[in-house]
């Protein structure tokens, strides 16, 4: 039996983008005959997500994260593959499906700009056909948790970005969706607001059991919220698994930390390092070396043999560094 909440198979999306050089001549030529290039945004993506799971989508800009989310939210037709969420095919856009999902876009507001948030919440309550009591209960509950009772009656345009984001979250959760897509929900927020919203999202996930997919460029968001991450690059899936094991699997190097015995012939340590070793911290009391992953054990043995080592530890590099490396090199 298959209990997956979200099941995606071979999902692909190729855009046809009109191509044209700059300048008037090119503009005129393109009137007569348009040239298109095909851009692959997402290519053969497959994964399943269980009910109540919280998954982080990570990848550099243009990796295909938002395109994937838009397909799952029914805003885009894929060019290939399938996706089934809660038994629905998202891009058929059935009203019953739209009632089950919600999407928060960090760079797009769904609040009505000139009137207080409470009015937008009212409209959404009507659009989703919510029962008055249930609506009131949800609004009370969410505004209490987010400590935003005093914002409810101010026009949205007078709110700060952080205050508005709180409203966006309430608006997205009013109809108690079973799937929530969060596209950069903490974009542009200060550190403490990020932390509070993160906390709120984690609580919501626990309380409502909603399945959540989050994209963010802040690794802190992902690290704190999502035990599981899906790493996409150039539209392809590079990694799907526990965040903690991402470095293990993907980092092409490891860090070796050494403490050398200063009194005992460690002055020329630099000359004695094997090839392929990079020095990150040259202090002999806390020497940090970066070595290729495959040669870690050979180099460790070599160092122990040739240098007066007091203490040695092998570590994975910090997550941010690994991600940065992957984003830059693209090849893993």
């Amino acid at each position, binding site marked *: 039996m298959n209990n997956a909440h979200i099941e995606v198979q071979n999902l692909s999306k190729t*855009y*046809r983008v009109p191509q044209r050089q700059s300048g008037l001549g090119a503009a005129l030529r393109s009137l007569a005959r348009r040239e298109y290039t095909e851009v692959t945004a997402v290519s053969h993506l497959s994964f399943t997500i269980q009910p109540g799971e919280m998954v982080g989508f990570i990848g550099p800009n243009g990796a295909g994260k938002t*395109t994937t989310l*838009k397909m799952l*939210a*029914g*805003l*885009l*037709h894929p060019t290939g593959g399938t996706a089934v969420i809660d038994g629905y095919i998202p*891009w058929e*856009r059935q*009203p*019953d499906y*739209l*009632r089950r*999902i*919600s*999407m928060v*876009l960090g760079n*797009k*507001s*769904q609040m*009505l*700009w*000139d*009137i207080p948030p409470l*009015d*937008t919440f*009212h*409209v959404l*309550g*009507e*659009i*989703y*056909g919510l029962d008055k009591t249930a609506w009131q209960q949800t609004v009370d509950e969410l505004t209490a948790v987010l400590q935003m009772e005093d914002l409810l009656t101010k*026009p949205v345009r007078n709110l700060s970005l952080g205050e508005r984001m709180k409203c966006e979250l309430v608006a997205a959760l009013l109809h108690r969706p079973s799937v929530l897509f969060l596209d950069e929900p903490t974009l542009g927020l200060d550190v403490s607001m990020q932390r509070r919203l993160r906390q709120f999202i984690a609580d919501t996930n626990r309380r409502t059991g909603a399945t959540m997919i989050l994209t963010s460029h802040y690794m802190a968001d992902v690290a704190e919220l999502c035990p599981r991450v899906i790493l996409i690059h150039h539209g392809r899936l590079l990694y799907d698994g526990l965040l903690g094991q991402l470095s293990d699997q993907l980092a092409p190097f490891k860090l070796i930390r050494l403490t050398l015995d200063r009194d005992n012939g460690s002055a020329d340590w630099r000359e004695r390092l094997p090839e392929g070793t990079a020095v990150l911290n040259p202090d002999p009391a806390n020497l940090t070396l970066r070595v290729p992953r495959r040669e870690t054990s050979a180099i460790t043995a070599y160092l122990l043999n040739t240098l007066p080592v007091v203490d040695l530890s092998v570590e994975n590099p910090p997550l941010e560094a690994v991600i940065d490396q992957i984003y830059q090199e693209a090849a893993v």
Partner: protein
Amino acid sequence: MNHNHQGGLALIRATWLSWMQHRSFFFILAFGWMMQPLIFMFVWATAAGDQTIGGLTRGEIVAYYLTLILVNQITYSQTNWTVGDLIRGGDMNRLLLLPMSPLYNTLASELAGKVVYLTFVLPIVLLLTLLLKPAFNLTAVSLFAFLPALLLAWLLRFLWGYALALLAFWAARADALLAVQDALVFLLAGQAAPTLLLPPLLRTLAVILPFRYMVGFPAEVLTGQLNGTQLTAGFVAQIGWLAVTLLLYQVMWRRGVRQYTAVGG
């Protein structure tokens, strides 16, 4: 189309509240829209002098144009200009996420706008009525027929413009067509001149094409310019064009959303 009248009504209420925040902006817009018919009213009224033009006296011309100002205000669909922005700016995404047709969003600003505009235009037209002494030849028939003609005119003008605006799903600057539409309305819908006063060729065009049924027709109905046959033929044409437009809208919407979701917003 995803019918959700309850949500739509709530949206209309909220949009109206939003728009009341910008009253003065809409008053200025409404003032601009009144200028053209006002100018042509004075031109034709002066031309008529103490005689008649095409069977219309000065008072009848004034009555026609004052009605036209109201009809134009009520049927003008300013929202058609913003649909393209919704599509290009990606705000259509937000609307497509809701279990409700995005048409409601446009209808909401449409209806909210009407109320705001009319609080400005109605007093002005009443004042002009007192000052200019128009000759309304009101009859029971003309009064009774005016309201349905007006409602159909608005529906036709709104949906027609909406369908054209949906071209933004394909072309980046579809607004140009809306400008052409406004020009045709100016010429053929009874603004530059009442349809009765048009030269034969233009007059035939006006009777056949949909534009007269968006503005001029209800004004002709109210001011009693039409005989029984013309009245019936007018309603038949109005309803016929509305049916065609409804079909056009549905085709445009279905294909447009498919296109939009194919290329992304």
